[in-house]
């Protein structure tokens, strides 16, 4: 019987092609949009984690409260002991110090006189230690435009934009002017070992990247850092775990009366990322909800129109001795077949659009606004098994639900009345 019904579905193009096309389009949009939006949001979280927030961040309480100003005088001291304590307690996590600072970068001419000057946003990381993965984490080797990463103290990377503006190239020497964590003036020469472009306006505007040992010496903050970032093994942010660790740490280390006591903040609570993460988590449900609702309404109407066309057929089937419940169930079987076929097409189309976007991405660096939250400059889709699943299953559900609503009238009507209405 099912074979017989499927034969009818295949032969009757108005019964199959249009609903299949609708389901396929719906599934395509669900898969593509959820992969795209999910990918962008995941990337945004990851970019923030890699550069500024870590999966958890330890700083002084006062620094955390004024973090947008990066106040060096509120930096974390005794960092080594805090770091080793954390490493003992959470051995599966990687703890890396960072120093954020800001000052002026002076470019001298051949006589040593100032040729040009510009504000710079500095970041110091443990770049000379190859075991902590900082070069990979910050994607430095892949984003170097010219030259190489720092290999010894006194070397610096500058942003490509700044280098172009000041006509700098690897091997040139620049001077940093700023203040130490105690407020006294500091200046230090750096040899440019390379230029870099992260594709992040916040980092590329006037970025200076140096090794943390240079920063500690230059800023007079021995055994100090502005932040200590913690990363989970595998690089995946685990929200529940991060909240738990932060709670444990803060319970024993944070003293609200001491602004220099240390505090741990999970990624979610930084740079307005909570909203982004929550959106990311609920994106699947939102997309599926919209899809099932919209498609069901459309397919309900398609089912009603199809039902009107097939009234006589239903009448004949009643007369031949098919119970109306069986007719109704056969409509659902047809809907399932159409839903499966449409969903398969939709999945193929969705993956065909999303996978290239996942591999090649879409460069939107010119359009990304400047803000505390770092957004990826290349938008990529993220295709996962659940992306496919959440397009495929709702495709079938929408079709069956639409047909169920359309066929409900047949099921509920009195047989004689139905037979009469069926114009047999």
């Amino acid at each position, binding site marked *: 019987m099912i074979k017989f019904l499927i034969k009818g579905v295949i032969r009757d193009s108005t019964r199959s092609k249009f609903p299949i096309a609708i389901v396929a389009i719906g599934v395509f949009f669900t898969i593509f949009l959820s992969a795209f939006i999910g990918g962008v949001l995941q990337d945004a979280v990851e970019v923030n984690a890699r550069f500024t927030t870590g999966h958890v961040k330890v700083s002084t309480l006062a620094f955390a409260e004024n973090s947008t100003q990066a106040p060096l005088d509120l930096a974390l001291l005794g960092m080594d002991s805090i770091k080793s304590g954390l490493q003992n307690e959470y051995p599966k996590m990687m703890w890396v110090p960072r120093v954020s600072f800001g000052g002026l970068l002076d470019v001298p001419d051949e006589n040593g006189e100032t040729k040009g000057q510009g504000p710079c946003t500095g970041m110091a990381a443990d770049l000379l230690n190859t075991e902590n993965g900082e070069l990979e984490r910050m994607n430095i080797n892949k984003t170097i435009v010219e030259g190489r990463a720092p290999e010894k103290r006194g070397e610096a990377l500058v942003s490509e934009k700044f280098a172009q503006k000041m006509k700098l190239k690897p091997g040139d020497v620049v001077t940093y002017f700023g203040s130490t964590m105690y407020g006294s003036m500091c200046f230090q020469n750096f040899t440019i070992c390379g230029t870099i472009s992260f594709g992040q306006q916040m980092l590329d505007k006037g970025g200076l990247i140096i090794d943390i040992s240079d920063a500690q010496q230059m800023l007079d903050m021995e055994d100090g850092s502005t932040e200590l970032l913690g990363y989970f093994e595998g690089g995946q942010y685990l929200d529940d775990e991060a909240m738990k660790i932060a709670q444990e740490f803060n319970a024993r280390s944070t003293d609200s009366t001491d602004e220099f006591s240390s505090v741990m903040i999970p990624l979610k609570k930084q740079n307005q990322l909570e909203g982004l993460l929550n959106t990311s988590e609920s994106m699947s449900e939102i997309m599926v909800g919209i899809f099932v609702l919209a498609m069901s309404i459309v397919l309900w109407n398609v089912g009603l129109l199809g039902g009107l066309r097939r009234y006589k057929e239903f009448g*004949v089937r009643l007369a031949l*001795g098919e*119970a*109306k*419940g069986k007719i109704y169930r056969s409509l659902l079987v047809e809907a399932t077949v159409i839903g499966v076929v449409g969903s398969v097409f939709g999945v193929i189309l969705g993956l065909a659009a999303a996978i290239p976007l996942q591999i090649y991405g879409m460069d939107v660096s010119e359009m990304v606004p400047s803000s505390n939250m770092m957004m990826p400059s290349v938008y990529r889709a993220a295709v996962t098994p659940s992306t496919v699943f959440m397009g495929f299953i709702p495709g079938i559900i929408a079709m069956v639900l639409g047909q169920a609503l359309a066929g409900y009238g047949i099921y509920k009507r009195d047989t004689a009345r139905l037979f009469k209405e069926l114009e047999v």
Partner: protein
Amino acid sequence: METIISIKNLTKEFPVGDGAFVALKNINLDFKKGEFAGLVGPSGSGKTTLLNIIGSLDVPTNGTAEIMGKDIAGLSHKEAAQLRNKYVGFIFQEFHLLPVYTVYENVEFALLLQDIPKDERHKAVMEALEWVGLTHKKDAKPSKLSGGESQRVAIARAIVKRPAILLADEPSANLDSANAHNIMQVMVKLNEELDTTFIFSTHDEKVMQYLKRIVHLRDGGLEKDEWIKEATV
């Protein structure tokens, strides 16, 4: 002969506004196995309503209608469908073949509902098509058939499951004279060979001349129950 349809004091009313329209009133009729009978009367006389009740598609308001020993009023939807499936065949004025299926598949459909194995289905379908002389058209779609051929396919579809009762509602209405005679001759032959009870609803003289019994209905009432010993053709 065994009585297979027994109608006693049957009344059928349809609600109209605050009142009711009486479609059939106080009908008493019996049909025996192998009869070739017709319900005859003008439009609105209650022919189709009575045919629907005999076909277990409708139930009486009062009185009883027993088909194959089962009281129609007491059957659930599913039981009524089972009764139709097993014992009743329908032939319609407008043929109502399923357009996406071939002639063979249209006839086969009636058997699919009975879960008959494929080999047996094939044998029965070919036999039914042979009775109506359409084996050569088994792969044709209904759109390629003439009116007479379509009605013969509808007869094959009704007869393929060998029902005890075959109900035909104005079967000649959409056929020319030659085709009307042709399908009537097919039905006479089937009635004789299979001992199936045929009940027609008609006001067509071409059909009436083949009937062995004519039940005249007027305004929902039984006007005359006329037995004709021999068919006129």
